[in-house]
Structure formats: structure tokens, C-alpha cells
């Protein structure tokens, strides 16, 4: 009894001391990035068939829709970057990386999906007035190639993991497409974006040097503030793609292979240069994210 009261007193004192040290200034405040997934103008849901997608106006049914976001920064009016410290919650985000998950494992999302969903990122910001936001679509290099079984949440998620060598899928959107002819079976498209050209002794050995093509899109959204929604639009990403076509002997859709014809438009839609895996002109041509 006396022991536990003593415990409580010590812990409370330590907590107060820790709080004072941890805050790092008076101007730190919570900030939330809210996202919403759409296919064109329509809200995204597993099981809905969306018409008019891509260059052939295909009908698309989505089977997976998840992505990792890291290196979140708010932008001030002068374009200065102010890092957002993510609040680790042992599920959706660590201090460094957050998972956005728009699928809920229902209907066609059931094969690999999870019932849980998440459409926001929570962090702490400094006192600067917000005039925009910038973040990286991907897992930081230092965390991208590890044992998924021992990784901390949200990176302990097998369905977003390729393997030690290639690391995590930064973006995963699986879907099937049909045209107007019901006799033609659906075309399977898998958009799995991650690093490529990763060198190591085997698929289950992590590389010790950076992968040749990072494929981490740097997304800048000017005019964003926490009152505004960040729209993630699959139809906009696929606007220049023919999703009824898969080049023979390449992955279905785009699995980040710079030599796959289907990857040219998809990577461009993320603002990336396919051959280098780097942003083409600050990734400013990306079509996937917009502010509303």
C-alpha cells in the first residue's frame, strides 16, 4: 500500500519532468492530415465499380488501396519546411512512418485486406503558420529493408512487404478492369510501387547500399492547411494509362519495373522519372494527391 503510493508519487514526478523536457517549447501543437480516397469524383469503396478510368474509359473494381507516408513537413508562406513529429500509436504510425489504409477487407478487398482502415496522419507541429504540406510517399530507406516479423507497427504488415531485398511496397493499389465487351475477362492490374535495383546476396538479405531507383515520390501540396482534405485520386493517377492492357512478359499493371511500359505513365503520375526513380522536377507533375 505504502509502496504503491510511493511508486505513484515518483512516477508522477518523473512524468512531469519528462513532459517538460519532451515538449521542447511552448509552441508545439497537434496537427492532423486528413485524407480521403476517391476514384475521380466518386468516394472510394471496395466492391464499387468505377467507370471511365484511364485512356480506354475502363470499368475498375479495386481490391487493395494502401500506402506508407513519411517525412511529413508543413510549409510556411516562404516555402520553409517545418518537420511534423508523428505520434506513435503502435498501429498506424511510428515516429517516422504512417500507413494510410482505405480498404476494409470487404468484397474484392477480402483476399489480402485488413478490416481496419485509416485515413489520417497525426503529429506535432511547431508554431509556424501553415501554407502547405510536403511528405514522402514511401518508407524511409533506413527502415525499408528489414525482417517484417520483427518490425514495429505499422511495418509489421506482411501484405505491404516484398522481402528484405526489395523492402516494402510504398503504395499498393490492386484492381481489375473491364471494357465494354462482357465476353472479355477482366484485366488484372497491380500497382505496387517501391524501390528497385536493390542489390544484396539474396532476396532475403537486406542490401547494404541504397537501391538504384528509390521511387519515393516527394509530394508538395501548396495551399493545404489542417482544415482542408487531401484527396487521393486513383483515376487521376491512372489518367494516362490503358488499364485494359498488360504488356506480355511484364508484371500485371506496374510493379515499379522501369522497363515495364505500363510503369511509364504510373510513375509519371506520381511525379517520378522512371529511369532514375527520382522526382522529375520536384515531383510537381504528380496527379495522385490534391487539396480540397
Amino acid at each position: 500500500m505504502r509502496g504503491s503510493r510511493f511508486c505513484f508519487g515518483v512516477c508522477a514526478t518523473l512524468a512531469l519532468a519528462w513532459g517538460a523536457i519532451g515538449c521542447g517549447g511552448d509552441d508545439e501543437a497537434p496537427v492532423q492530415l486528413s485524407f480521403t480516397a476517391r476514384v475521380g469524383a466518386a468516394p472510394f469503396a471496395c466492391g464499387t465499380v468505377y467507370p471511365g478510368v484511364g485512356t480506354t474509359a475502363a470499368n475498375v473494381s479495386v481490391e487493395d488501396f494502401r500506402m506508407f507516408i513519411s517525412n511529413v513537413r508543413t510549409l510556411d508562406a516562404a516555402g520553409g519546411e517545418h518537420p511534423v513529429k508523428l505520434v506513435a500509436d503502435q498501429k498506424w504510425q511510428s515516429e517516422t512512418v504512417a500507413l494510410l489504409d482505405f480498404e476494409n477487407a470487404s468484397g474484392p478487398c477480402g483476399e489480402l485486406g485488413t478490416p481496419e482502415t485509416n485515413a489520417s496522419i497525426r503529429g506535432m507541429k511547431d508554431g509556424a503558420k501553415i501554407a502547405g504540406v510536403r511528405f514522402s510517399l514511401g518508407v524511409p530507406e533506413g527502415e525499408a529493408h528489414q525482417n517484417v516479423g520483427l518490425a514495429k507497427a505499422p511495418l509489421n504488415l506482411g501484405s505491404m512487404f516484398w522481402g528484405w531485398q526489395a523492402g516494402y511496397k510504398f503504395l499498393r493499389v490492386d484492381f481489375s478492369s473491364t471494357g465494354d465487351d462482357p465476353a472479355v475477362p477482366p484485366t488484372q492490374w497491380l500497382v505496387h510501387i517501391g524501390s528497385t535495383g536493390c542489390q544484396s546476396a539474396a532476396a532475403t538479405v537486406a542490401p547494404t547500399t541504397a537501391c538504384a531507383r528509390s521511387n519515393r515520390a516527394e509530394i508538395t501540396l501548396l495551399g493545404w492547411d489542417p482544415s482542408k482534405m487531401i484527396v487521393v485520386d486513383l483515376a487521376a493517377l491512372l489518367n494516362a494509362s490503358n488499364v485494359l492492357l498488360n504488356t506480355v512478359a511484364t508484371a500485371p499493371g506496374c510493379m515499379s519495373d522501369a522497363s515495364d511500359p505500363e510503369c511509364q505513365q504510373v510513375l509519371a503520375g506520381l511525379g517520378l522519372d522512371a529511369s532514375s526513380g527520382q522526382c522529375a522536377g520536384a515531383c510537381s507533375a504528380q496527379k495522385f494527391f490534391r487539396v480540397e
Partner: protein
Amino acid sequence: MKAASLTVALVVGSCCTLLACGEHRTSTFTWSLPPGFPVPAVPADNPMTNEKVQLGRRLFYDGRLSGNETQSCASCHKQELAFSDGMPAATGSTGQMTPRGSMALVNVAYNGTQTWANPALLLLEQQIPIPIFGERPVELGATGNEPQILARYMADVSYPRQFAQAFPDDPAPVSFANITKALAAFLRTLISGNSAFDRYTYQNDKTAMSASALRGLELFFTERLECFHCHGGFNFSSSTTQADAAFTERAFHNNGLYNIGGAGSYPPGNRGVFEITGVREDMGKFRAPTLRNIALTAPYMHDGSLATLDDVLDFYAAGGRVIESGPLAGDGRANPFKSRFVPGFVLTTEERADLMAFLQSLTDTSFVQNPSFAKPL
């Protein structure tokens, strides 16, 4: 100063824990996990103890658990076959056939769901009563024989003490609830992580895998073969959980084994998750089992309808199975509910040998020979 306060707090904390526990009646259980393996999830109402594990091990091998005392769990889960039984489907204690094969008991502590195809069976504690009590089909056949079965344990010279030691807070410890808990505790210790692949990947033994097996490993992880989408992660299964799991990964897949009448159907009574949910899209969906020790667990698929690993490679290369005639006729490759990860592929003779060498490298001899998992003396 602060450090000193913290030390005091920790010491006091430890004292509190000791006092709260009262006398130590069960020993502390320590996982002996292979390198690279996470701590398995254990339900709060059935914590691991050595006493429970040892009781569960004894029960697992003891025929007294079946109504007619002819079968034990081990009758269909043999250690030398990675706790499978080598049969396409199992025969219960009264001679009835199960519709599906006995699953290997390899790393079941990490299964996102148990058995072949039931999204609601999350825990071993939920699964174990099925072979004990099930009536359609009868497996161990305990139903209707419950008092007699418990009486066998109570009349034994050492079981009552063993139950009491495993469940010290239970005034009537010889019960089916405790039998289930003890069996679950034992099954959670059946962890395999010392194959040639593990020694190469996690134990830094770069000589453990042959050049051929390493080429097979590369093939396994390509988007051309797509194996790893359903057999990924440390346990080579898309249905995997662990103590600190943040998400519910309980995948099920239709791999194109059947397509009766072209409408996607599987044989009645064996239609996968559809049997549970009644949802059309769940037709033919089964859990992807771990590939660890897969070379020991023939025949393959839920109904044992593929005899060898060679047959399995042919099957996935074809992107499904065509059955030309008879009541099961249909082109499984065109099953409308087939997984998007079974498109088919072409292998050269050498690639095929490499892939086979990789699958063989997942055999863990120390697991099938581990005396801690064998019948107690």
C-alpha cells in the same frame, strides 16, 4: 538524483509484483525462439507455463482423449511428418473420413486463423474442441463420452497432480476446458525455424543453402511466379499474427483447383470459406499454409488432391487445374473467384530444379527430431 529515484521506483515495483503474485505455484515460461522470429500471440486467459506445456504434450500423445481410446491427436499429427499424417484426408476414431487433410502443426502459434478455411477460428483454444468433440465427422469422438474420458484421467496415478500443477487456481482442474488450454500451450511451442533457409537468412551461415536453392529463393520472390504474395513473411503464409501484431491479416485464396460447371464451384462439402460465410466470392478460398517443412507434408491442397511437390509446381505453373470429365469436371484456371496471384508461369528445367531445392531448404530436421515435441517417456 533522477536516476536514483527511478531505481527506487523499479525496486518498489518489483516488490509489489512479488507480493501480488503470492506463492509461486507455476514456473515462468521462457520462449526459445529461433533468430528472426517474433514472440507469438498468447490469449490472456491461457498464459504459457511449463506445467501446461508438459500436460498438453502428454495429452497430445494419449489415446485416452478419444471416446473409444483408439486415437490421440498424434494419430493424425505425426512428428516425423511435421505433425501431418501423409493422407489426403484423415480417418477418425470411429472410421469416419474427414473431408480435408490433417494440417501440419508447424508454427501454428503464428496462424492468423486456424484450420483450412474459417475466418472466425482465431485461436487454438477454439480449434482444438473441433477434433475432440466434432460429430460430423467424428474425429476423437468425445461427445457423449465426456464423463468416461475425464474419469480416465482422474483414475490415473499421475494425471490429477499434473492437472493441478498446470491449473493451480482451479479447484476441479481435470476438465475439457483445461485439456484444451494445455493442448493449446503445447501446440504453441511447436516452432520450426532452423531450416537451411533459416540458417542462411537469420543465422548468418552463408553455406547453409546450395547455389541452386538460392536461385530458387530468388525465383520464389519474383513477380513472375508470385509465390510470396500468399506465402510471404517469416512464416511463408499470408495469414500470420504475433504478439505485437497491429493488423488482422487473415487471408484466404482460391487457387483454381476446381471450377465445376464453369461457375466457380468447388466440390460440395469442401468449398472453403464459402461453407462458413455463404458469400459467393468466398467459394474455394482456403488459408495459405506455411511452406516450412512442406517437403514432409504430402499430399498437398486441402483435399490432398495433388500427390507431390512436382504436381504442385505443375499446378501453379498452369495457373490452375483442368479436370476433363466426371462430376468435378471444369477448368480451374478460369475459376471466376481465382486469386489474382495465380496467373501461371513458365519454368525452365533448371529453374524448376532450383525452386524445388529452395522448397527442400525449408525442411527443418531439428524440428521433426526435437525430443521436446516427442511422446513423453
